[in-house]
């Protein structure tokens, strides 16, 4: 299963599930849930955290959180 961590900047995906036992509620509240489309914008200068775009806004989260988000690629953005 690929997770959000495996995406490169510019790639897009849809959240399909959670690798951990339960999704962190904070991520759910920020709108990251099954079916949400996410685009990886960039990595921080030191490689962590990552910046993602979802529901029209930008969010940063650490790779350890990204690892918990299982995704399916939907093709890269133009």
């Amino acid at each position, binding site marked *: 299963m690929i997770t959000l961590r495996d995406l490169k900047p510019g790639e897009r995906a849809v959240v399909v599930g959670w690798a951990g036992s339960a999704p962190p509620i904070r991520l*759910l509240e920020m709108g990251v849930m099954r079916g949400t489309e996410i685009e990886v914008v960039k990595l*921080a*200068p030191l490689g962590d955290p990552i*910046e993602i775009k979802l529901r029209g806004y930008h969010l940063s989260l650490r790779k350890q959180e990204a690892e918990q988000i299982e995704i399916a690629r939907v093709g890269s953005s133009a």
Partner: protein
Amino acid sequence: MSEPAYERISAPHVPPQPERLVALAGNPNVGKTTVFNRLTRMRQKVGNYPGVTVEHKTGSMLGPDGTPITIIDVPGTYSLNPRSLDEEVAYRVLIGAMEGSRRPDLVVCLVDASNLERNLYLASQVLDLGKPTIIALNMVDAAEGAGIQADAGKLSEELGVPVIPMVASRGQGIEELRAAICGPLPIPARRRWKLDLAVEEKADALAHRLERDLPALSPKQRFSDALRALTQRGASFFEVHHTPAFWSEVREAREALERAGVSSEQAEVVGRYEWITPMAGRVLERTSLPKATLTDRIDAVLTHRVAGPILFFLILAVVFQSVFAWAGPFMDAIDGATASLGDRVGASLPEGPIRSLLIDGIIAGVGAVVIFLPQILILFFFLGLLEDTGYMARAAFIMDRIMKRVGLSGRSVVPLLSGFACAIPGIMAARTIENQRDRLVTIMVTPLMTCSARLPVYALLIGAFIPAGALFGFLGYQGLTLLALYLLGVAFAVFAAWVLKRFVIKGEQSVFVMELPPYRLPRLRDVLWRMLERSKLFLTRAGTIVFAVAVVLWFLATYPEVGPKPEIETRRAELTQLLSGTSEGERSAELAAGLAEFEDEQAAYALSESAMGHLGRFIEPVIAPLGYDWKIGVALVASLAAREVAVSALGTIYSVQDADETSSRLVDRMRADLSPRTGKPTWTPLVAASLMVFFVLACQCLATVAVVRRETASWRWPLFMFGYMTALAWAAAFVTYQGGALLGLS
């Protein structure tokens, strides 16, 4: 979860409040401050909610018929579910359960049109409270810029409450909002989102049970209260207003749901978004294709792999440079004003203890704190600018990886760096850290960053005991020493953070999830206003305690009073006799010089016999291993109030009136001082080094202790901070002095 005592959500006999109370809620970064400032036109009061650190801000505006309306600023949060202190306070303010505020009559929920989906999550929680609610749809211009047209009418239809489109930064829609606030209260909307059926059933049962416990609540409020109890995890920061019987029912319901494989927390969030996502699709119309926004273009530079960190340090360098450079003249002016105030008071009062208490105690003591005001103003101005433009989140984004190493997050970077100017704004800036554990650790280590109050002490000691030469011809030893002291502070802050996080301050591991808001042109007025607000907090908070301590220190340094030292009196008589034969002009000049000398000596004698002098001698055995004698002990005791007081205390001890760090007479006397016991100099470069190390690490700042007490709402943490920092300072100074001595240094 603790079983709290039963407490009514509202007192039954509250007299009718004629004045309308309006709560202004919304996500962070939606321009809430601007709306609040525009509505209230800066008629505001800022304080803290009792017992907690969250800011309590109210303002007032006039209705069209001149009736005053109070607006309460609810902390900006993403959710009303209590996962952070801010969220809990926001919820309690909205339901009127917060001590010090009554139940609002109307809620204005501000949402960002350019980020509607996520903003509507909070809005849906607000609507569930069953209060009359108005939605203020802000930043419709930003949405249009991104090619999105938000239909306020349609949104109003979907939500069932009035929606007012606005561009608060330009003042558009403010008058409409003002009129709506003053108008008839809108009817609360019914809940339109669907909850997982199993959870709904349990929440309904619990809400029914609340009907008996809390008859004052409306059915909607009871349901949202029950759902909240059901989805709440972890202990609440506040006493909860439910009975133990209710909690045991909640526990049973939760267990039943868990057995069925249903997470009530998840069900609540997902249920709301399942309603919001399609609704946002109906409300928003895409008018043009998405294109790279201005924010994307700015971020291409500011969070660039190479340019990002460089610019980050450049921006910081400019900020801190201005804090020092721009504040200088103002600090001198305050210094001058303090002195002239002292002179004027001195001229109008007769010689005596009251005059001395006023001038040497209160004016000098409070002046020593007020002098930091310019630095605080400038730092807060820049911090406000960085916050309002959206850069602060980028700074955290860039630095998070490094801060993670010591167990903190990027959020701690700015408070810690603010500590370079003064720990107090740094500790106050830690409010922006969502995770309470990270926040506490940050507060605990911020005072280890080298603040500007240490500078006078360093300047005095470096100037006196570090040679002026240069390494490789251009790296001055004095400058290098100063740099080393700064780095030592940083190193210990990092070390202390790691230890505290690992062994002392336990708690849940934080999930670092941070919004990167679009860059926005800050509104200068908002930035300046916040700067003034924060400075006022600094003055009143630090001022009251410093005032008290200044008085105490004055008493310690003045009493018990001793008469003139016989030896000095004899010599004074001798001098007068000796000069009686010389001519008039010569005599008076020499006499005056001699008398001034005696006065200085008498002051030193009085200090050494005072309680402070005795304290210095009392702690001498403890500080002797660090290389200090009782005089340095006096300076240490005096500097408990504020570090830079050490300089003026040394000035008094060495009988130099009005000593400052550039006083060469003080330096000369310190260098010439011989220990009466060993006959060797009291001050050596090694003693100076040991003392500087002590100052790097010790918590000699009562204003900091006072602010930590305020920010953590307990005495536990400030006392712990004082204890650990003092122990650390002693140990490091011990190693410096004894280690240096072993190496044959002096």
